[in-house]
């Protein structure tokens, strides 16, 4: 059923009085000096609804979502794994959520201790020398990393280095970040087996090379086998290596970016460390750095001395690239990651990479056996892998998008579609380690049923989804007849 907008449920004069001060505005402002010139007189669209209406509306809306808690969600590159419920309730203990970010360190030792230990654990799993928790998502981690690379070169007077090498398979945030840091993006081609084209790389590096941004395993779902060679080439050319940690889940406990030769890394704690994705965020893009970039790390970070834990800021780290957020970053997300890591422990952490990889390889083999075409059939899957529907698209006019929509009807969230851009009609599938084999088998069954319908009943696939709150939406109209904010008038 369509759920009316909250604005449409509004009635003049209705309120939820338990939620606001009991006195009226006029009575509250009596005797206060708030000049009329500053006072607002215009109305807003804020709805006038009861508390029950709010509860009912947002409860009902929630039911219109797929989520990990309700559906298998194999969205490649996003690591949609189980978010332990304890992480939520413990991170929201009153002591944590009521603490003001500028409160004195004496009143935050519990929180600071968690952050300090989190920094240490993240160093340990990545093989880096320093960690800053402040970036608020992967993309901000990237920005931090490239800014540090830039600062490093500048500190050495190496001002010409403003090119960032990025494989063509890279996530969009990589090139966007390089631009945001005032760098030029140099795209690197991928070879037929999904590795970076080494020759092209050799050509590309030079005195302008600031660094390279790599995801390993890459967004193609394969491990970059020549990583040590790449590292050598880039380092020899005077560049630094940035590791996009979005895919860290694949190798957790198996191999460390620091050991591969990376100088800086961001980690998506909302992926590998299972903080919730929240319908689009918040995440955390904590960064780890090697020796060379240590002085440039963004502040604040948590240090420890005889008096306990304390913030280190610009005064402690004068070469820091500075601050990226109003306070210290997404503390609540960091707490969730901390709790998750403590529950995994060293052994559990190793198992993450192992079982994420087992699930992906199993699913890949089963889909291959069922007739689906793999993008890189000669390769191991990492924690994810790609199938391409280019033949189906060509022969039956059923696209990756069509298959994605048909999956929704079977109760499965679709894999990532049309990314990476260089594989046509692709589905990037990431089951994660927290899904059972039964679920993977059920997914294969659904894919097989869809494949059968491709020939037997293609229209039904074009018509999909039919079991969702809406059917396929008119995206063109959405962009052309832009309606992105409700107004009293446009519906009255």
């Amino acid at each position, binding site marked *: 059923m369509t759920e009316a907008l909250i604005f449409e449920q509004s009635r003049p004069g209705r309120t*939820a009085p338990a939620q*606001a001060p009991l006195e009226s505005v006029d009575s509250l402002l009596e005797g206060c000096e708030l000049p009329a010139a500053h006072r607002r007189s215009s109305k807003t669209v804020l709805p006038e609804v009861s508390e029950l209406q709010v509860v009912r509306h947002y409860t009902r809306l929630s039911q219109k979502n797929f989520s990990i808690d309700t559906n298998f969600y194999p969205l490649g590159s996003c690591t949609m794994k189980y978010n332990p419920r304890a992480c939520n309730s413990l991170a929201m203990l009153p002591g944590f959520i009521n603490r*003001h970010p500028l409160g004195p360190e004496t009143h935050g030792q519990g929180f600071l201790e968690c952050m300090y230990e989190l920094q240490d654990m993240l*160093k340990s799993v990545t093989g880096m020398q320093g960690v800053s928790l402040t970036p608020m998502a992967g993309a901000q981690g990237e920005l931090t990393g490239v800014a540090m690379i830039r600062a490093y070169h500048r500190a050495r007077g190496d001002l010409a280095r403003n090119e960032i090498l990025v494989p063509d398979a890279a996530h969009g945030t990589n090139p966007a970040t390089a631009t945001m840091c005032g760098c030029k993006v140099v795209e690197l081609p991928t070879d037929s087996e999904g590795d970076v084209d080494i020759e092209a790389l050799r050509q590309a590096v030079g005195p302008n090379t600031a660094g390279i941004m790599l995801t390993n395993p890459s967004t193609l779902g394969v491990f970059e086998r020549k990583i040590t060679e790449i590292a050598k080439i880039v380092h020899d050319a005077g560049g630094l290596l940035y590791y996009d940690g979005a895919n860290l889940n694949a190798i957790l406990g198996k191999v460390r970016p620091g050991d591969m030769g990376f100088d800086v890394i961001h980690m998506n704690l909302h992926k590998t460390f299972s903080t919730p994705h929240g319908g689009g965020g918040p995440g955390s893009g904590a960064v780890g750095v090697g020796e060379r970039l240590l002085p440039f790390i963004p502040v604040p970070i948590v240090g420890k001395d005889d008096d306990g834990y304390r913030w280190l800021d610009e005064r402690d780290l004068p070469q820091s690239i500075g601050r990226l957020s109003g306070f210290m970053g997404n503390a609540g997300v960091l707490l969730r990651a901390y709790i998750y890591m403590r529950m995994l*422990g060293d052994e*559990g952490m190793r198992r993450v990479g192992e079982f994420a990889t087992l699930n992906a390889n199993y699913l890949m083999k089963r889909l291959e056996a069922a007739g689906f075409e793999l993008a890189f059939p000669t390769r191991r899957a990492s924690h994810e892998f790609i199938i391409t529907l280019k033949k189906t698209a060509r022969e039956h006019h059923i696209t990756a998008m069509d298959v994605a929509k048909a999956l929704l009807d079977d109760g499965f969230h679709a894999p990532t579609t049309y990314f990476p851009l260089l594989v046509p009609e692709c589905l990037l599938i990431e089951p994660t380690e927290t899904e059972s084999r039964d679920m993977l088998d059920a997914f294969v069954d659904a894919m097989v049923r869809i494949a059968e319908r491709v020939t037997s009943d293609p229209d039904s696939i074009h018509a999909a989804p039919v079991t969702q709150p809406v059917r396929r939406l008119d995206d063109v109209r959405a*962009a052309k007849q832009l309606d992105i904010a409700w107004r009293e008038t446009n519906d009255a």
Partner: protein
Amino acid sequence: MPFIPHTETDIREMLDAIGAESIDELFDEIPESLRIEGLEGVPSALNEMQVTRLMHERAAQDRDALSFIGAGAYEHHIPALVWQLTTRGEYYSAYTPYQAEASQGTLQVIYEYQSMIASLTGMEVSNASLYDGASAVAEAALMAVRANRKSKSRRVVFAGGTSRTYQKVAQAIAGTQGLLFDESPLDPARGIADPEQFLAGDEPPVAVVIQQPNFLGNLEDVDALTDAAHAVGALVIAVVNPTSLALIRPPGEWGEKGADIVCGEGQPLGVPLSSGGPYFGFMTTRAALVRQLPGRIVGRTVDVDGKPGFTLTLQAREQHIRRSKATSNICTNQGLMVTAATMYLAVLGEEGLARVAAASHRQTQKLVSALTSVRGVECAYDTPFFHEAVLRLDRPAADVLARLAEHDVLGGLDLGVDHPELGNALLVCATETKTDEDIERYRALLAEVMNEQGSLASAG
């Protein structure tokens, strides 16, 4: 194996299906030399009971102070429904609504949010969130440069009262793109930017940033500042406290033409203090500038049956489509916080939010009166403020604050660090959460501390 559902049988049969002997074999493409065996430095696993106890102990250390600190993050009452609903799995454990048909819940919430925040700021359009208030200012500056094609300048002027932290963050994020940030002089008597001197000298900037109320709590003369900026062809970026907008004139109504871009920290709208995050940055603008907005945007449309529905739109601005030419690199934003804020705004409504704002204002007035009744404490400015004010002490604020904290009263922010030019200054804040008794507790304790330190000083 926490959270891993595999049985021994599963593992065996799965490996068989793959044709591998062991899980380790699946990593055979990784150079042997890189593989590690253990994870030193990671303690062994705790079960949920153990970690629960640990976290309760840690949280207990951080508990129960009476806080008068604001400075960009504000303690407000958050209706219980907000987080009980926000943490429902369907919101909490979903991701960006890439599959619109299976994400109508999140999408409609964001559409409602965009509508509310656009209206609250007096603007036409909004994005779906940025990371926080500080980084939103940086994004706004970058957006202004893109949007103000007429200007050749890369100079952005902050009105003198703008948060120094926001300025630093803008520098760290946008500075690498060659933006030059300046701060205009603060009128020392009034604690607000002086409109006369605002854009004096120098080349006209591409944009200005005006914070209202400013970091010191004072209400700027936003009309004059806005008109002055527009007069020299600069775009006006307004940085506002969203709670205040239920009471205070919104940026859309500043000066002749209104602000061009509005951003700020969304935390006051139902997001807990939580040591600094996750919060969310909001950003709204005029419809004409929508294609320059960074971040996700949700639009309303119809499905093939003509039924209304919601979807991500204008994605051509974004990194996953436009890559190096995107309006921003932002991907994951602060969706869950916006979900909370939407519920908060829905249940408060205009009247409720106005009461929160008015009560905060009144309690701050009372706080200032009470504290300035203590010897050695005076009001730094005689300017109208919203719910924060600067007090000047006859001694360094740090010492006083430390003594207060020993009694679990957090007396405000010592401005000595970021604003040494203000002398012994203390930024205090009260919201609707502070009762008259709370204020009296602070006053009495402050009097005691000032007295005791005073006598100590004279004794020493």
